[in-house]
Every structure is written in C-alpha cells, then in structure tokens.
C-alpha cells in the first residue's frame, strides 16, 4: 500500500504559516480570493490540488512554489555588537522610502539589500546578529507563506500555540505518549472522554485508520461538533464507522433515556414533514440503543481521558467496560488532580501500577558555532496518569 499524497481540496480546513511566522487557518472552498492581509492576496483556485506543506511566493496575485531556505553556513567572525549604537538613526532607509520602493514594484529582496547596504553599522555586526537582522527583515517584507500538512502532530502544535488552554495543555509530545501508553492501534476499541475540542478524538481516528471504535462520552445532550477533528480533513471512511458518542447520562446503565416521541399523538394525522422527522428520530433512537448496548457489552481495549471531570470518578464509570489488561491513560494540566486520583486507584485492586509522569520537551538550535537550546520553551505540557486494568 502507498498512502495517497495529501492535497488541498475544497471543503478542507487549511492551516497556513504566514510570512510573519504566525499561523492561521482558512475554511477553504476553492473559489474567490484568499487574502493574507498586508501580505497580499491570491485566487483560491491556485491552491486546489496542491500538495500540503509547500511554500509559496505571492507574485502578481498568483502563487509560485518556492524552495524552502537551506541553512546558511554563517561562520562567526571577530565582529562583536560592542560598537553598535542602539538608535534608529543608523537605519538610513526611511519608512517613506520603503513605501515608495514598494509601490514602485521593487522586489522585497532588493528592499532588504538596500536596507542592509545603507545600514551604517551592518558590517560591524556579528554574523549572528546579521543573520537575525536579515530574518527580521525577511519576515517583514517577503510574501512567503506555507501551507501546513494536516498531520496530527502539526494540528496539535497549531492549537497548542494558538490556544493552549482550549486543549488543556496537551502538547504534541504528550499526545503521542498517550497513544503509545494506551497501545492505540488499527482495529482497537477505545473509550474516550474528550473535553479538548476533539483533539484527542482526531488523534485516535488517525491512529485507527478507519478500523476499530472510538466511543466518546460527552457532557452535552447530543454529540458536539468536534472542532479540531475538521482540521485533519479526514476522508469520511476514517470517521463514519469508527466514531460514536454517548453522554454521561445515556452512558449510565441504570438510566432509562427519555426520548422524544417517535409516533404521532393518538388520532392525529401527520404531515409529510412530521413523518420524516419521526423517521429521523427513530433512526437516532436505534443508533443510541445500539451504542449503549455496545458500551455495556464492554471488552474495550483502552480508556483515554482529557477531561475537566475528576479522573477517578470518570474511570470508575468506564472501567467496568474495559477488558482485563486494558490501559487507562489520563492527561491533566494539573498534577494535583492526578495525584488525588492515583491515590484512590492505589487502594483499588482493579488498577495495576498507576503511575504519573511529566512530559518534557526541548528544542535546539543547531548552527556552526552557535548551537544551544532554544531560549523559549514550553513549560507546561501537562501530566499523564496511566494504569492497567486487573
């Protein structure tokens, strides 16, 4: 088997990395104009069928694929930043001049070169700060943007940077560890409590590849829209036969769900519209009963939780449906929440070896003569509690 290349199609949610380095997403319909604000605009049709992950230059309202920059071997020189004055007067090209150059159609690269030429102290700067200076200028003027391939890693990273609390601090490394700890594999059957806008579900769906079961227990009456799932641009077969939902009431064996009427009231004639509505209700009702039956039959392979509810109360509800030797994996932004749950699990022989761990991640800059860990790093990817069902 050869996985098909991921290409941009109308209906997709497309993540874009802007020339400034910021990311945003567009609901892509393939028609009209896509505007990237001050960076320019282009006809949407230009992107239809394109491979994800490429970099483009917006030139004359059309797109040109450009090669990504390769690392320039910047050797450190003897220059230091010692003699450089920190005033803006040393920047000889004025804002007005830049605007004039731009409207005269001068290419961004040329503007940058012009600035560098006239930057009085540029020769005095170290190679390092020259590089930094160039990067800053490039970000400002170049109209290069890239599309981001919708891998689960990229989607998680996108949301972690955009709205970390919405995904309850699940950093990509933590998400991948959840999948590994829970032995998520194609054909497996999992119970999920996703209060992270569908991030966990999206990841499960990708790892199941269209085979198996993700049963999400939600805290609203009917299944919510799992916003982040749409970022994966799944083919329908990746989702349709895999994902089902219950809520915490319908997932309760002792509870008889109260359902909307599926028969017209006695002696009343019903319109076509009503009949169709009744028909739909009946279908929904039988789907609900099937899902309940499936839950109560149990024998699931794993429980994965990224939820606002107290974890032990969640696992106690779901563990009867977990097969022996099945895994329980819980993510929380707060270790206190997990330690409380863990101490309850320890006193309960159903749980083997409940353990807590903190994911840690650090990125490095690798450049000749200036290799070091990145100055800024994420300090909070949450915590993981895992255990095995006895």
């Amino acid at each position, binding site marked *: 088997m050869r*996985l098909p290349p991921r290409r941009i199609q109308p209906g997709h949610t497309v993540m874009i990395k802007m020339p400034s380095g910021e990311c945003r997403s567009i609901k892509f319909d393939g028609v009209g104009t896509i505007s990237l604000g001050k960076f320019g605009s282009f006809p949407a049709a230009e992107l239809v069928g394109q491979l994800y992950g490429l970099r483009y230059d917006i030139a004359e309202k059309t797109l040109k694929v450009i*090669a990504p920059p390769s690392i320039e071997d910047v050797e450190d020189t003897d220059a230091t930043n010692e003699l450089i004055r920190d005033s803006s007067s040393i920047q000889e090209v004025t804002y007005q001049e830049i605007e004039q150059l731009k409207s005269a159609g001068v290419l961004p690269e040329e503007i940058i070169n012009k600035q560098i030429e006239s930057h009085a102290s540029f020769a005095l700067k170290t190679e390092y700060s020259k590089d930094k200076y160039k990067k800053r200028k490039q970000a400002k003027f170049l109209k290069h943007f890239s599309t981001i*391939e919708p891998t689960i890693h990229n989607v998680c990273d996108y949301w972690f940077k955009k709205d970390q609390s919405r995904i309850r601090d699940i950093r990509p490394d933590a998400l991948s560890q959840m999948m590994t700890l829970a032995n998520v594999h194609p054909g497996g059957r999992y119970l999920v409590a996703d209060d992270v806008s569908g991030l966990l579900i999206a990841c499960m769906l990708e790892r199941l590849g269209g085979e198996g079961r993700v049963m999400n227990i939600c805290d609203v009456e009917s299944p919510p829209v799992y916003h982040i799932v749409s970022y994966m641009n799944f083919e329908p077969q990746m989702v349709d036969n895999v994902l089902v939902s219950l809520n915490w009431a319908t997932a309760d064996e002792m509870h008889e769900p109260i359902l909307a009427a599926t028969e017209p009231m006695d002696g009343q004639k019903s319109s076509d519209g009503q009949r169709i509505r009744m028909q739909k209700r009946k279908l929904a009702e039988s789907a609900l009963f099937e899902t309940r039956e499936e839950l109560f039959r149990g024998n699931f392979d794993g429980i994965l939780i990224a939820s606002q509810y107290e974890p032990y109360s969640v696992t106690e509800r779901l563990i009867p449906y977990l097969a022996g030797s099945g895994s329980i994996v819980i993510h929380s932004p707060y270790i206190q929440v997990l330690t409380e749950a863990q101490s309850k699990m320890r006193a309960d022989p159903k749980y*083997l070896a409940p353990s807590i*761990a903190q994911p840690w991640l650090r990125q490095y800059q*690798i450049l*000749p003569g200036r290799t070091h860990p990145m100055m800024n790093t994420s300090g909070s990817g949450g915590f993981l509690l895992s255990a095995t069902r006895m």
Partner: protein
Amino acid sequence: MWSVAPTVASGDTVILWLGRDIIQALVVTPGKVFNGRYGAFPHDALVGVLYGSKVFSQKERGFLYVLRPTPELWTLALPHRTQILYLADIAFVTSMLAVRPGSTVIEAGTGSGSFSHSVARTVGSKGHLFSFDFHQDRVDKARIEFLRHGLHQRITLAHRNVCKDGFGLLDRADAVFLDLPAPWEAVPHVKLALRSDISARVCCFSPCIEQVMRTVAALNENAFSEIQTYESLLFPQETYSNPAPPPVSQITNALKESEIKREQRRLRQISNAQLRKRKRDEDADDQNLKRPRLQDPAPSDPGSSSSVPQPVPDADPDHRAPADLPDNPPKIVVSKTIPEVRGHTSYLTFAILLPSEFRPRSHDATTLDTNIEQSATKQEQSVQ
C-alpha cells in the same frame, strides 16, 4: 500481532508483571515451570486464565500478574542486545514522522527491536516496516521474535550495512528512522529511499551533539529542509500520602507551653534545693545554735536567682522537641519527581524531504546520486 483472545492459551507470549522493575516475557509452554522471585508458577496454571489476572504461585506464597503484551510492555521486558529506545522517544518520533496506519517506514539498525515493535503496531497490517542491521546475530534474533509476535508479514528484515550499501529501496518510504553511530553516512541513501511524491520525513537519533552537527550538515547538503532538533523526556513522579504539614501556630504554642513547664520545673528545683539547704542548716544550727543566719533568700522570689540557671538534663523529654502535636494529623497527597531521572537519551534530529521538484538547491554531485540510484534499483529485489 499478539493474541487478542480474552484468555491465555498455550503458545501465547505473555508478560509477567512481578513489580515495577520486574517485568518479564514468557512463552506459555505446558509442562514448563516459571521460577521467579515470588515462587514457582507452572505454565499450565496460566492456560485459560483471563488476561489481567492475578495468579498465585504453586505454594500460594507469592503472586504475579499476567498481562497481554503491548509494544510498550515488550520494551520493558525484551532481552537487551543493544541500547534501546524507550516510550518517550518512540512516541515523539512516531508523531514527528507522521507515522500512521498504512505508512511505509524504514529503520536502521534493528538493534533489540524495541522501536520496531511500536512502529509495526502503529502502521498496522496495511503498512510496512523495513528494518536493517549489519549485525547478523541481532538480525537472526529479531527475525525469531517478529515471527513469534506475528509481525513477520509487516516487517521485512535485512542484514545489511546501510551506510555502505544503502537500503536497496527506491522512492518507497514515507519515513526513515536512523539509530546508528554515523547517520550522516546514510543520509544520501535515505534521500533515495524516501518517496519523491510527498513531503517525506527522516529522524536521526544520536546521543552526542557532535553527531547532530554532522547529521544536520549532511541533511542540509542533501536538500532536506525544516531541520529541527529536539530532546524528549518523561519525568516519573512519586506520590505520597503524608501527614498534612502542621501550621506554625501549633509549634509556637507547644514551645510556649514547654517554656512554662521548664520554668515551673526550675522553680520546683530551686525550692527543693532551698528545702534541702534549710534542712542542712537546721541540722548545723542544732550544732552551732549561736551562728547568725545570713543571705537566706526568700523562697518565693525567683527573680533574685535568675542569673544562676539550673542545668537541664538532656534526657528530660519535656525539654526536647514538641511533644504536643496531634497524634493523627490529616493526610494529604503530595508528589515530587523521583530522585534520579533519565536526564538524556539522545537528540532527535528531524527533517523533511520535499517532492523532487520543490527541493532546495542541492550541493551534492549529481553523479553520486545516479550511481546509488542504479545500484539501489538492483538491490531492491534483494530486500523484497
């Protein structure tokens, strides 16, 4: 992969869990006996029990848990033939390389097969793993394990020096993972083995930063882009149910009380001493009736003798630490990182190889490329 039946059958590979640090794999073989730290367990007694059961030893002295194998448990139980990858790195590599069901992945070297099991699980029956090692014995042992674990159809093993001879695969893999001492030597071959119609990915796993520098240079020269280096770790946390830390008012009061007690005792000792002295004096007076009594301090005036502190015997329990704390303070649950953690495994260097027409300008000689390409086409059959 492994058995999916609810109960253990003869011939199954099972994981025996004897403790957090004692996790062993076992092929259930009727007639055999497993002798562990906690007693003897005949294999026959395991047949038919539910996975996830507690099983007692023959003499009911000890017990163990029987678990269904997973790649993660296998990593903890496998026989070490080399250094291996653990969960944190495996998970992160899988995620960054975008490995999913249906992916074709290449790894070198196979080593002890820790990474192989996890990736084979994730790519599923529709995906494939090509695994290479130039150490014959490791290849042979891995072959037996893959067969026994039902992975032989989704893993192709080859005995090969990938730095010298490449992978023998052309335009084939979605991702390549290199855990070798000199990954940079294999980078030109990786370029050929990766698919040319997608953004394909590579990861090089090296413990030393010098290796990383050489790898990054090689990746850059070979038109890879988005080169990124990470370290990924998991810090295990320990949890305790401890007495709640007492408020300082508690010890303040205890100290005040013991201060008062000490003072009372001192006064008692003084008055006792005075009593004794008076007794002695009276005895003496009986002999020297005429002698005038001088410097007789009033027994009820402690202030006048404060400059003469009474030595306090060490053994006196009242004068040691607080004795008045409550016997059963409330318990609270606390946690901290375990004292010694794995602080470094390796640097993970990732890069992307764009489809051929979009790659950055390559510095390497094209002649080298075509040479390898020709030999790679020939070698492809040998791996299949």
